[in-house]
């Protein structure tokens, strides 16, 4: 067992978990944050994407011991306000089953933090590690584009 100390969605958490436990398992089984999904366990599908120190990371292949500051889908909305990326996904109905959506939203959020006005090619490249078996890719690209526009406008307004 290893003693683990993390900050998840702004709140400190500590606990004992077996060595090499993945961040995904800690989130889902210890913190009971089930919004981060298991899809493949080998970093192929992006369903488990969270932000670690601001970077989009695959929680299923990240040992929990390597994470410090984690933001999950549950921590993205603030003060009851959805993040612009979340709003854009609803507006574009950029999902079908919705299982990949939390990971997609986190991946897109990380992209827009780094590249506020991405081209479609930037979006495709950034999200290429995310699978959507329902095939909603064109809507997701549109949603990320729309979120980028909204965020740029909101920044200008200050």
């Amino acid at each position, binding site marked *: 067992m290893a003693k683990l100390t993390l900050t998840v969605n702004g709140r400190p958490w500590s606990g004992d*978990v*077996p060595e090499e*436990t993945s961040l995904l*398992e800690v989130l889902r*089984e210890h913190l*009971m*944050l*089930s*919004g*981060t*999904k*298991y*899809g*493949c*366990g*080998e970093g*192929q*599908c992006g*369903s488990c994407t969270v932000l670690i120190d601001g970077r989009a990371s695959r929680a299923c292949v990240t040992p929990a011991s390597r994470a410090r500051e984690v933001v*999950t*889908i*549950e921590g*993205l*909305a603030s003060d009851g306000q*959805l993040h612009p990326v*979340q*709003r854009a*996904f*609803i507006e574009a*109905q950029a*999902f*079908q*089953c*919705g*299982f*990949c*959506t*939390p990971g997609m*939203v986190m991946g897109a959020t990380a992209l827009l933090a780094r590249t506020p006005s991405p081209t479609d090619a930037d*979006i*495709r*490249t950034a*999200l*290429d590690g*995310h*699978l*959507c*078996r*329902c*095939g*909603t*890719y*064109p*809507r*997701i*690209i549109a949603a990320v584009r729309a979120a980028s526009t909204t965020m740029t406008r909101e920044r200008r307004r200050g």
Partner: protein
Amino acid sequence: MADDRRTAYKRRFDGDLEPESYEIVDILDTLTPDRRAFLATLGGGLLFLVTVRAQDRDLPVRVQVTDDGTYRAFTGKMDMGQGSRTLLTQAFAEELGVPVERVTLVMGDTRLCPDDGGTWASITTPQTVPVIRKAAAAVRAARTGGTDALTAPAAWTTLGRSIPNTTSLAIVTGAKTYPSDLRLPGMLHASLVRSPHHRAQLVAYDAAAVERIPGVRVLRDADLLAVVAADPGTARRAASLVTATWTPAPLRPQNEWPARFKATAVAPVEQPTARYPPLLRRGDVEAGLAGAARRLSSTYWVPPIAHVPMEPRAAVADWRDDAVTVYGGSQAPFLVRQEVAQALQVPEARVRIIASDSGGGFGGKQRGECEVEAARLSRLAGAPVRVAWTREEELTCSYTRPAGLVDVESGVDADGRLTALRFANYNSGAAGLAPQYDVPHQWVGHYRATAEVRQGSYRSLAAVANNFALESHMDEWAAALQIDPVAFRLRHITDARLRQVVEQTAARFGWGATPVGQGRGVGISCNLEKDARLALCVEVAVRGTDVRVVRMVATGDFGAALNPDALLNQMTGAIIQGMGGALWEHVDFDTTAQTTRRLSRYRLPRFRDVPAMDVQLIDRRDVDAAGAGESPITLTAPALAAAVFSATGRRRRSLPLLPLRDAAP
């Protein structure tokens, strides 16, 4: 479970159902104790039990008016992402005469919901929606004293509108609870000790290394061997320490499958009332072929492929007091109830299935393998047990879309019109057999065959293989006769709506105006499947052995678009999903085992693959709505194969199309 029971269950919902009459069987408020208990489970109010009669069948509908005046409606249909939750909510709301916000849909709980069939074959729209509308209108009439007539399409306020997915907020916030998210107090996590083989019997096992670990238990029921523990990581690590000896069943090499299918083929007989009639005959195909000016024969092949829903199967079973409740995500909760009851040898009344919206199904979650495993283990453990398949289990313990061989032989007259078509599908299925073309002499049939690997439902099932074969064959004829592929198709299409769809698609695409050759190619496909009229034009760029899809233009006429935006989402997604089976997907086996075991070894469509897309609908408000979850997937493979031919002059008759190196010239 025996396949004949599945077949019998499915047959109950075969055929088109036009609601003829209804009866409000009962209105539950102050009734017998067990009914009161039932109502108490529902939270009180007034419960309408309605039976809708359609073609000698009685279909049950339940609607509850709760104490706060909102409605709860119940259905055994499931939502795996195809939008049935929102659509059926719309159907109830439209005829109850209330906004969608006033209706909550309870799906997939076999205790609360009526058995209105499984979620398959795109029948929710054409079959369930009319039944629900009829019953909801009856409830409205009973409540208001007004008419029980259906709302005319022109007067729709909810149907026909692009109502957003009713779970949108939960989806984007991570709050939506999928089957794999469910936890029960005191629950144990199971990790199964699987044989590496496709089928095998457990001979012996050694769990000595595990039994000393505190909190870990080894459970065995026949060939089911599992370790359970309070957390999944402990269970998984312990399971990896168990050694087991298995006797595998041998598998023939995959290159022998075509011969095997033919050797075991059972000739079809006509069953005109079946959902998928296995034999369609018209005219005299022998005479037609004999009298043809030119003949052409081709053989097509589709390999087994995997569904790969993003959410691998998961179930939690709670066995107590000789009864079991299983939480899962099957597409067919009432069938799963049968399966669990049979596996545990208990009456169905002692099994309750509570299925929730799952993370994709595509036909892969019609059976209850995972639910049965959880139920068996819960009984052994004496505690709730969760079985959550890993991705490897999802790939290898499920079933694949059947491989299929299609032999096509046809003839044209001196004017280049198809006069005879013999079309024989081996093993993959009878779905989508009916040609969309008018050919005077036809023999179109599906030979059942024996496959050694597990195979089962898949989005549109054999309609992909059948349309790949038929449309590729049409393309071969167009090339042989040096006629434009669109013109050649139109020559044989009598359905006015399909003609319009093909013409509009070709026009928007700029068919005939797009340069081809030198690595660029265009292709078209169309289909009249499950009452939908569909066409797709594609442009590809071929580089070496690879193909990039440049753009796609598609049109769908599904009759009335009950939720146009959701329909477009389905159609677009199905075409994109079809790229996987067309270009890359195949599941491989060796002499005992499936060798395709990881997502990293199974190429699926990704962001980088998605072309520019223009997908449009023709919305015919006054025409009965067709289901849309499946049929568009049948367009992709033949259009891409035609485009590859257009670009390279090489005809590829088996899927997947890539890599291109072994394509026949």
